[in-house]
């Protein structure tokens, strides 16, 4: 028996006026996999994330989350998604716990249930001892970890992260990347948008997006072949300095 993919994107296109931002994008994310959406800046990653989170909608193509059609059953689909946007979405002048409670409430959770889930999510990201601190007092890495923990409160089936390491130092980047790989190893399905190949492990699935089109979907090892992933990526996309980490 085949399992429904955690995320299935089929023939999705989107235009801003005359400009084709996404062109016939199709890929599937299997359950419990870490999938990197790899593309240079301007490839269409953030636009695709806006479609996956229903901040934008398109009539061209179909998106399914854990078997739920995002267009027909958006609430069921959104309930199964955890999102970490590229731009931080935190109330800086309130505590970590209050930020988490607000998010839990948006998902309909309050009281003891919310507290238990928040504690578990913070524990998972080694952030529990920071619960009482104001977000403004946290460094960039801890803020990101907090956002990831927040995205896990409602136990999503798919975790979407849009370039989550932007602006972080090397140590924080490595730590966040390792944490999310661990989450995938525990069974969570992860779609990680990036333009930095050093965030990808050989066993990870990779979807290469360039100029709004999917160039290839395969494991990082397969795409790299005999050489390095970065060389293969640059060859596919026609050269891009920023890919070098």
């Amino acid at each position, binding site marked *: 028996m085949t399992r429904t993919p955690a995320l299935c994107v089929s023939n999705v296109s989107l235009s801003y006026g005359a400009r084709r931002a996404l062109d016939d994008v199709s890929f599937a994310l299997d359950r419990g996999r870490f999938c990197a959406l790899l593309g240079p800046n301007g490839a269409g990653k953030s636009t695709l994330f806006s479609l996956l989170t229903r*901040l934008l909608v398109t009539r061209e193509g179909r998106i399914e989350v854990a078997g739920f059609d995002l267009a027909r059953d958006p609430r069921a689909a959104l309930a199964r998604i955890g999102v970490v946007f590229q731009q931080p979405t935190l109330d800086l002048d309130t505590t970590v716990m209050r930020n988490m409670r607000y998010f839990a409430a*948006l998902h309909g959770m309050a009281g003891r249930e919310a507290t238990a889930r928040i504690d578990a999510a913070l524990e998972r990201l080694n952030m529990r001892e920071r619960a009482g601190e104001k977000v403004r007092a946290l460094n960039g890495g801890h803020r990101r970890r907090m956002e990831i923990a927040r995205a896990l409160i409602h136990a999503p089936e798919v975790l979407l992260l849009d370039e989550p390491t932007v602006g972080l130092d090397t140590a924080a980047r490595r730590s966040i990347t390792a944490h999310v790989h661990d989450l995938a190893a525990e069974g969570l399905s992860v779609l990680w948008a990036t333009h930095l190949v050093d965030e990808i492990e050989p066993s990870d699935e990779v979807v290469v997006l360039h100029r709004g089109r999917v160039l290839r979907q395969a494991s990082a090892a397969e795409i790299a072949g005999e050489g390095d992933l970065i060389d293969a990526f640059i060859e596919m996309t026609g050269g891009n300095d920023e890919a070098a980490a």
Partner: protein
Amino acid sequence: MKAWLVALHAIVLREAMRFLQNRGRFLSALVRPLVWLVIFAAGFRAALGLSITPPYQTYITYEVYIVPGLCAMIQLFNGMQSSLSLVYDQEMGSMRLLLTSPRPRWWLLFCKLMAGVAVSLLQVYAFLGIAALMGIKMPAMGYVYVLPALVLSGLMLGALGLLISSTIRQLENFAGVMNFVIFPMFFLSTALYPLWKMAEASRLLRDICAVNPFTHAVELIRFALYAQFNGWALLWVGTGAVAFFLLALLGYDPARGLMRRKG
């Protein structure tokens, strides 16, 4: 349904906490109408003679006349402030967090509206309290009857703010909109002078005042403060609230609205 109410509670609480933590905003929200009440009204008291018109049953001083208009002004400014905060939220990204939660988008935006109304109620009642301390008192039941009127007018003005926020891309564009919305709405209304007084100056201006939804918000509040019902004002304000909200929903529609334009 419980989940919907949990979201409503969280959004209203967040907005109220943000308002109460921002002392500058609280203070300016109170100082603005008090300046009008203490300085402007004192200057105009002698210049403006007021006849006895409903809901008043006797001659009133100008200070008494403008209190309902100032209550509505607080809500107008608050609606625009909420709109500003929505534009800020869009720039800062927290709007994305709200709009990607698994509740209907209309409900999430309605929660935002209600949060703005709750904040405006805090401001209006604080203002009415200070006015009472200054000797400008309303009938006791007026303070109760005015609550639903304030909720409805707050919804209408908040929905207008929501609509405006759906059309603005950047905070920098906001000042111009404030000038083109707040001042005309406020001055072309019955907040500072009755319609018949405006008619003495210009029938056209009087007609514009008569169709300004803000005029009807002022009158709804004025009548309610005297424990009276103004059905016509209620109809106008209710219709305005629904119309502005529906238009704002179009602006926030993911298929055609703000997020698409922002790219």
